[in-house]
């Protein structure tokens, strides 16, 4: 995949825009800047971007509204930039369909990694229910419902497998607690986050070498989980 992808940066702080523009341009991305939410929505509609980087603290409208606006007609990946005091906004934005988030301040390495994952995900990996997912020695064969770690096949209960398969389908993307509960247990279970945590724990004990420092099943504290994609 070439780096000629178009990225819209919706951010009101000029200094942040400047740094993003310089960095992203040097990586070969086409950068379109927008200062306000409205402008961002307009650019997203006309420029057919490959990715949107959206700051949650916009002066004119709620970042969550911008995510909803984009999601109304497009599945373009959206990466959110948030400050530490915006925990709940961040979760709402993820629930509204944003793909990933970064907490300010963040390093360039982190940002570029997220961008790569999001772009790859968007360009074809997603929705691949029949494919085989591999990262390091973990392999998930979606067709045969087979999970192997190195050479050993891992036996999972149906719910554990369902949980893993939802994560595989959105590999690299942050999935909120609510979304996972709904997908795996059904809409009646969205308030019972401890179900998710218990099953995530058993899944880790089966798949991870050191469950306290997971390699694959990453915790996004207070937000949800992410399956490492690379």
């Amino acid at each position: 995949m070439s780096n000629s992808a178009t990225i819209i940066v919706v951010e009101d702080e000029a200094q942040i825009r400047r740094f993003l523009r310089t960095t992203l341009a040097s990586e070969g991305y086409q950068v379109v800047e927008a200062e306000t939410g409205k402008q961002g929505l307009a650019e997203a509609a006309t420029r057919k971007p490959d990715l949107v980087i959206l700051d949650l603290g916009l002066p004119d409208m709620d970042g969550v509204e911008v995510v909803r606006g984009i999601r109304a007609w497009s599945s373009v990946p959206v990466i959110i930039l948030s400050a530490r005091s915006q925990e709940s906004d961040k979760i709402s934005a993820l629930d509204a369909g944003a793909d990933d988030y970064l907490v300010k301040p963040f390093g360039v390495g982190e940002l570029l990694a997220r961008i790569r994952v999001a772009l790859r995900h968007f360009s074809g990996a997603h929705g691949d229910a029949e494919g085989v997912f591999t990262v390091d020695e973990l392999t998930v064969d979606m067709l045969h419902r087979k999970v192997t770690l190195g050479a050993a096949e891992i036996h999972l209960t149906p719910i554990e497998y369902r949980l893993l398969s939802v994560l595989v389908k959105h590999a690299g993307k942050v999935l909120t607690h609510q979304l996972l509960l709904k997908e795996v247990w059904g809409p009646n279970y969205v308030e019972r986050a401890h179900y998710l945590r218990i099953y995530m724990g058993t899944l880790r004990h089966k798949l991870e070498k050191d469950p306290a420092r997971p390699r694959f099943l990453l915790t996004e504290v207070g937000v949800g989980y992410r399956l490492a994609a690379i």
Partner: protein
Amino acid sequence: MADQRPDPDALLEKVQRAEAKRRRGRLKIFFGASAGVGKTFGMLLAARERRAEGLDVVAGYVETHKRAETEQLLEGLEVLPLRTVEYQNTTLREFDLDAALKRHPALILVDELAHTNAPDSRHAKRWQDVEELLDAGIDVYTAINVQHIESLNDVISQITGIPVWETVPDAVLEEATEIELIDLPPDELLQRLKEGKVYLPQQAERAAKNFFRKGNLIALRELALRRTADRVDAQMRDYRDDHAIQNVWQVKERLLVCIGPGGTAENLVRAAYRLAQLLRAEWVVVYIETAKLQRLSRQQRDDILRALKLAEELGAETATLSGYKLAEEVIAYARTRNATRIVLGKPTRPEWKRWLFGSLVDTIIRQARDIDIHVVGKESNILSQSRESPYFSRSRLYLGLASEEQQPMFKWRAGYLWAFVATAINTGISWVIFEHFDLANLIMVYLLGVVVVAARYGRGPSVLSSFLGVVAFDFFFVPPRFSFAVSDSQYLITFAVMLLVALVISGMTVSTRHQARIAGHRERRIASLFALSRELAATRGEENILRIAVKHVAEVFEAQAVVLLPNETGRIVYPTGEGEPQSCHGGDLSVAQWVYDHAQMAGQGTDTLPGGDMVYLPLQASSGMIGVLALLPLNPARIALPEQQRLLETFVSQIALALERVKLAAETQRAQLKMETEQLRNTLLSAISHDLRTPLAAIVGASSSLLRDSDKLDAHARHELGQSIYEEAIRMAGLANNLLDMARLEAGAVVLNRQWQPLEEVVGGALAGMNSRMANYPVNVRLPSDLPLVEIDSLMIERVFANLLENAVKYTPSGTAIEISAATDQTQLLVTVSDCGPGIPAGEEERIFEKFHRVVNEGNQGGAGLGLTICRAIVEAHGGRMWANNQPSGGAAFHFALPLSEPPSIEHEEAIQS
């Protein structure tokens, strides 16, 4: 000549009085001997002069009695419209106090000071309206006749034979700035009356027959002149005090007035008042309750209550004492109060009785050698003729006077029945022992019966059983038996002595019983006060004090109660808290406000706004008004009794003091908090300025170097500079995060988002966040596999781990291990983060948790010293605790314990899937 100099305290008091007077309005009273002498006329003349001088004069209420000359004078003066009140189908026209206060003139005319207001008015009496006007700083001109003065009331009733109901306390006259006597010789007055200048012709004729007799007029004139002279005399004395012509009065006289039953109590009180005025003495009126006095009739008891109330109104202190012997009690009390004189009523006993048994007066005169005794004669008594008011009929219960009469009828009858039964039993016992014992012993059995009956049923039944005992003894046992006849006449003596002994025993037993009851009553009162004080003393928080206050007041005074407190702007508002079962609702806030503003009682049983059912008492403490206690008494008369009122006052002041204590404590706390905040701000500023400046200096330096010399720098140097900028910026970000966390935690803005979490995941989150900086530190995570879920805010606890790990990285040499471990006991989860570094300096284990505290030799490790403070705040917000120590093997260990509870159940996998 030091003696000649005024006492500084007395002078100070005088200055304060003068100060208070200056702020108050000035009261001028036009004083006359009777109607028609020209008081209103004089008042209007004076008012016109004031107006001519340019003063803002308003006629608030002027009674012209349709006299032409007077009405002429009223012309041209601004007259305040009267308030009309519908009362029992008649329209009353009353002075409009509120309009006057609103209009707020410099001088207002309010005629007829002794007037009684219509029932719904704010005050019962017009003189109280005037008081309020004066308090508001308005000057008042008013008029009054001598017969309306409280202390002269009885004298005048005797002279004229016409009782006067409308009276004005003497204090009002004494406080007046000026009194102008309007004098008219009786002949001229009668002439005026004849000419129809005083009353309309028909009225005039009737008046002349009754009141306006020449003899009356002369007497009244004399009283008015004397009264005025007394006042001039008092002014003279004041003047002399001011100018130190004589010693300032230092040795105060104190009168002890002893009132008793017999209808003369009120006269005695008035006479004593006049004497006290003359001597400028304090005076105390006591009523001494003995067992005998408890058996007084309803009428007599009411007289005593009324006299005590009158005494209070006239400015006396009152007390009700109980004792066995009147004279001893009076003298003992006089000595404890340092009374210089005792005032007594003239004995009413017939001469032969006095000669035989002595009298109170004689005994006191004999025993109190060093105290002057005044004996006041009995006067014909027009006033105290049965004025049975509901107030008194309802109020007897208290004082503990009415116990006998309050007993229900059946008990009363049962007593007599028991007298028969006891006699029958005694006869039975005697019958059994008759064979073996002497007759004299049988008498003892009967006497025992009398004692039992007396102790249980009081006087009547015990007297009955005395007689019955003698009769039964005679009939059944004295030979010839079964006959009332007596064979040996010496038995007659036996009977007489037996009866006498039985009666004496019954009398003494009954007395003892009453004493015990009175003592019990007092003790209950003191106990209730003690209980209140004790509970209040042990209470913190306004809410609790209010609750306790309401509870106790409700119990002791049989009333519903509520404490009303002002808001920030000084307006009384309804309480916001949840009420108690004893709380009363629906108090009148405007009355409460009045009480709060004027620091005076109001409501039922008082002189102000007596219309409603509730009583409002000001809660006044040393620093001023605290609030208002509103009471809805079940028995209003109880509250109005002097004794009870004093108890209530004590309660009120206790409550006020307790509330004040809380208020002051809160203020102190606020002040301290402010001081601490100030101090904190300074520490914060210096910490931030240091911790921000250092990284900023590095960033500015490194980045400017990159910008300027980029050609000269090799790749390695550029990387070094970039690395330096990055690290310093991260450090600043950390500081900003900590400050933000601290601010949020301190502001109480943090609402914990508690969810059931596996600890492992939180530890993992923290480790992932620290990844880059922990590369050189091997971390051992040792969590038992069966660790239960804990209900925590994962973001917050992650901060705890992150801060602890960061500290470990900061203070331990690179390459040393860090260990995270956890264990559980029954109630808590214990987490430890330990390192292999130099450990915590001795004695710093607790201080490191303090805000901005840094270990001394920290050097430029950075950090504002907030990390551990935040950790502890977070753990404590979770209901846990946090501490630190050094491990035996070296290195610091940080521990925190979180409470465990039963985690939520989880359905089995199969159940969910089906």
